[in-house]
């Protein structure tokens, strides 16, 4: 027998016993043939290797998904023609023959045949099957995906966001997945990053990516850091790869424990603590996510399902560490996810700026008009054109003209948040073109600015409605000014403010208005009905829903800093968590959502006798959140989560300040100092401020967030505690005892742009005092619901004053005082006194 024949027999023997003669011949040959023995060993080895495939972990739910897809396919109505008579049957048979014959002729004619699938479902499957891999994998990223990180996602490790067939149908709950925990609970961070950014992957990432593609087992919902590889040694690389694979394959059986949760706006640090207590497994939240808040309502859910839902919604990852018998899990946001959020923020901001620029372009065609011509034309114009002409007829004319003459550097400075000043009389003012200068003065004439003579012989500019005095354009020495600034109302929402004015002698007057605004996509309507259209026919969402959230807070009765009643004072408000709770109570569905402080009128999120699908769309649009359905979860994510995350104040701080306020009966000054140290984004947020007052009763929040006083508060905060207390004494803090950096900051706060004019002798006697007048709790009850909502009873107005004193015998002694609504600059040696009221309208806030 030849070796080839023997090897054939070896193969056959693996599949079953050989006849005796063949077996004997085989054994005889093998005894004397080394090569055939090697083949036999190889064959055996292959058999055992391939047998290991039987243990290959597999994804579940494929059958369920296919059945769901099959059941939901468009139905083709089949009509059967009854055969009533032999003649009819004969005619039918003849027709059939004709059709068959015609078909054969047609097929043989070599014409290209385009088959039209009668069943749209089959058409979809056919066309899908014919696509090549590239066309399938190249799923384009779109802004629509911004909040889709938490929507239906395949287990991590799968390189495509959706199973291709799964894209055709809503996901079907496939029960607890037996695949690895890490794969199950974590979304693929790489995939998420790739969807939004064009970040080059390092070689390590490439290796990890390839391995992840191969491994479908293990707790792959948990992020496993790839081992550090030093150098390019193959052995080290292989060892690192092997270690990574081992880690990825692990399944922690403890994660099958079930938990029930009903938490509203709970920080992850607290949630992890609760999960640890309930399950005995160590969970922690890393610093990157510890203060993010989540709302969860679920019953008897396996921990791994919950972990996966969190990972899906937030694009956070679970890191596993510790011994195999007691793994610890830490929730964190990886650098890639952080970069992705940054990218989303930038995109959102850029979209807003582009929208603003488009709005400004509408003004371009009207720039040839003078302010007077624009005013004349606006009388006969209507609608949007009228509004634009009115802008150009007044103080907007000069600013609009300037906008279109800005250099790229100036535009960059504007986008960077700087204020562009024009007019030589202003500090740091850029030169103003002559033709614009005249136009601005003419506009000042038109809006009623007049120049009057002071008793001491100096001139002053007066505002609207003054009849006496002469127009600026005919006053020698009147200098026109114009300013441009980009105002960020809320993050992602921009307005271009333009002001023009006139300065004369020591005084100046200006008037401003917003020229255009740009709304970022994130603050626009999320249009849930559109983005969830594919779920419209989901039977589980067609059930009737009656959603009526229970209000958890009321708006405070009086906005003391405004001196009037707040709109809707005493009215109840609901949070997004209240709404999600109502949905859960009504539907029994498992719910997970992010939480950002946002108060909503209950009427806007109350739905009766509507399908759940419609109710979710309406409610989510009202809350500016996007909803999605993933497995059994209903997920809710703020449409602007990447901006909202920056605004939200940690719950632990709010609770602590609330407790301190309750203890004292008013907000202690140390707490106000702490509040003022929050980020600008947190303090600028109107929603956060409203929530702090209504939910936590921090009625003095405005004192600390006021943009006018913010720098003063922060200066105070940077002074060590023991010295800081002296600020509240009659003598105040002796600035000369502060370090040099402190003295410099004092000079800037006291003198603004002229800080360099402050001398050492001025600082020697300089002091800083703070006068804090707390809110009278008796006058302003935090429980305003007890009082009728239409009452605008005056309440005690708290205030804080920062008093900066400095000076010398040569330059005189000066006192600068800044408080909530007022700033004064006084000379104390009797030579003179200047006091001015700051206009607050252009300084943000609600005014």
């Amino acid at each position, binding site marked *: 027998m030849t070796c080839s024949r023997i090897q054939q027999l070896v193969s056959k023997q693996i599949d079953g016993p050989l006849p005796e003669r063949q077996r004997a011949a085989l054994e005889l040959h093998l005894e004397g043939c080394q090569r055939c023995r090697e083949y036999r060993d190889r064959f055996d080895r292959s058999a055992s290797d391939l047998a290991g495939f039987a243990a*290959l972990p*597999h994804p579940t739910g494929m059958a369920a998904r296919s059945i769901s897809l099959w059941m939901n396919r468009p139905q083709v109505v089949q009509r059967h023609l009854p055969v009533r008579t032999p003649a009819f049957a004969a005619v039918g048979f003849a027709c059939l023959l004709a059709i068959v014959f015609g078909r054969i002729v047609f097929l043989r004619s070599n014409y290209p045949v385009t088959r039209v699938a009668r069943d749209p479902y089959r058409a979809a499957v056919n066309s899908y099957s014919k696509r090549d891999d590239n066309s399938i994998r190249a799923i384009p990223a779109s802004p629509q995906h911004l909040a889709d990180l938490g929507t239906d996602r395949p287990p991590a490790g799968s390189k495509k966001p959706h199973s291709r067939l799964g894209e055709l149908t809503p996901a079907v709950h496939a029960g607890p997945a037996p695949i690895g925990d890490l794969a199950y609970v974590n979304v693929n961070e790489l995939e998420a990053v790739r969807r939004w950014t064009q970040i080059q992957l390092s070689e390590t990432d490439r290796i990890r990516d390839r391995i992840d593609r191969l491994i479908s087992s293990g707790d792959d919902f948990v992020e496993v850091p790839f081992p550090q590889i030093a150098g390019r040694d193959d052995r080290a690389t292989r060892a690192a790869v092997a270690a990574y694979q081992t880690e990825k*394959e692990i399944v922690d059986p403890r994660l099958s424990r079930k938990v029930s949760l009903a938490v509203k706006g709970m920080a992850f640090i607290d949630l992890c603590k609760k999960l640890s207590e309930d399950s005995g497994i160590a969970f922690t939240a890393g610093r990157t996510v510890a203060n993010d808040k989540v709302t969860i309502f679920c019953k008897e859910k396996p921990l791994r399902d919950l972990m996966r839902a969190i990972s899906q919604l937030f694009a956070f990852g679970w890191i596993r560490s510790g011994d195999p018998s007691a793994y610890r899990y830490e929730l964190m946001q990886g650098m890639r996810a952080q970069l992705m959020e940054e990218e989303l923020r930038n995109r959102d901001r850029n979209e807003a700026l582009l929208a603003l620029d488009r709005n400004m372009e509408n003004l371009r065609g009207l720039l040839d008009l003078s302010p007077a011509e624009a005013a004349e034309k606006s009388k006969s114009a209507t609608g949007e054109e009228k509004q634009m002409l009115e802008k150009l007829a007044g103080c907007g004319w000069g600013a609009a003209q300037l906008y279109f003459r800005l250099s790229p550097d100036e535009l960059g400075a504007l986008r960077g948040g700087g204020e562009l000043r024009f007019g030589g009389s202003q500090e740091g003012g850029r030169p103003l073109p002559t033709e614009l200068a005249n136009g601005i003065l003419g506009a000042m004439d038109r809006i009623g600015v007049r120049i009057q003579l002071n008793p001491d012989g100096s001139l002053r500019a007066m505002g609207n409605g003054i009849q006496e005095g002469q127009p600026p354009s005919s006053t020698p020495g009147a200098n026109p000014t114009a300013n441009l600034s980009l105002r960020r109302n809320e993050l992602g929402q921009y307005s271009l403010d333009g002001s023009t004015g006139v300065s004369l002698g020591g005084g100046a007057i200006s008037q401003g208005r917003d020229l255009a605004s740009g709304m970022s996509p994130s603050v626009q309507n999320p249009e849930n009905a559109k983005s969830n259209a594919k779920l419209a026919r989901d039977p589980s969402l067609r059930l009737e829903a009656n959603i009526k959230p229970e209000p958890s807070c009321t708006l405070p009765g009086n906005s003391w800093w405004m001196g009037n009643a707040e709109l809707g004072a005493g009215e109840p408000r609901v949070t997004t968590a209240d709404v999600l709770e109502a949905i859960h109570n009504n539907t029994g569905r498992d719910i997970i959502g992010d939480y950002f402080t946002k108060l909503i009128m209950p009427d806007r999120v109350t739905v009766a006798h509507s399908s759940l699908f419609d109710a979710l769309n309406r409610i989510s649009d009202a809350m500016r959140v996007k909803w999605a359905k993933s497995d059994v979860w209903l997920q809710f994510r703020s449409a602007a989560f990447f901006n909202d995350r920056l605004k939200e104040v940690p719950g632990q701080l709010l609770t602590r300040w609330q407790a301190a306020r309750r203890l004292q009966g008013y907000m202690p000054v140390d707490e106000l100092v702490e509040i003022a140290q929050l980020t600008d984004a947190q303090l600028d947020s109107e929603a956060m401020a409203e929530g702090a007052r209504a939910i936590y009763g921090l009625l003095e929040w405005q004192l600390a967030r006021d943009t006018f006083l913010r720098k003063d508060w922060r200066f105070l905060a940077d002074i060590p505690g023991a010295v800081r207390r002296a600020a509240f004494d009659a003598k105040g803090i002796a600035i000369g005892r502060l370090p040099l950096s402190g003295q410099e900051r004092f000079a800037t706060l006291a003198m603004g742009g002229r800080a360099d004019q402050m001398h050492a002798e001025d600082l020697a006697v300089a002091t800083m005092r703070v006068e804090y007048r707390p809110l009278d709790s008796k006058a302003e009850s935090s429980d305003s619901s007890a009082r009728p909502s239409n009452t605008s009873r005056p309440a005690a107005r708290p205030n804080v004053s920062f008093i900066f004193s400095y000076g010398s015998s040569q330059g005189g002694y000066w006192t600068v005082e800044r408080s909530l609504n007022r700033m004064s600059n006084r000379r104390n040696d009797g030579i003179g006194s200047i006091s001015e009221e700051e206009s607050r309208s252009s300084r943000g806030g609600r005014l």
Partner: protein
Amino acid sequence: MQQIRNWPSIQSHSETTAESELLRAAKRGEPQALRELLQPFERDLYILCYGILSHAQDSEDAVQETFLRALQALPGFRSDSSFRTWILRIGTNVCLDWKRSRRIIPDDHPVAGIPCNRRDSTENEVLNRIRVLDALSHLLPRHRAILIMKEAHRLSIPEIAQTMRWSEKKVHNELYRARKSLAEWRFREMEE
């Protein structure tokens, strides 16, 4: 036509009464029966598709398409073969079609060639699986299919023959060719 109308009466000896009931219910389109009928084959199909396609996500998709084709063809299933071999045949055809009609993206595994000393550890199990995948990728798709059926699914030669619609002799020959290709690839690997 007559046979189709009377299909319940034509049952193979391998089909138990329970299976028959299940099939009947499934043909009526009862979701629960369909699920009970198809779900047990998720693993077999996935392993088969993974063995042929060497790509986890593609395999998942292929399994779904197999189920869809099976659902469409179910009314025509006459039970003259076992349901298992029938659905494996569909799965094989789906994968072979994919291999033929679509550009194959090679998976260059960075771990190829890692020696496997401790067969009993999970770590080496995984590494070995990757190595085997590499080896399989050098075989013809039909060889991959029958090797998986034989070694992983433990199908008998007649069952493989039924699935592939080959003669038993051809199955033996193809298995031999597949094993030899695999062995030769390994010899080459060792030499390198």
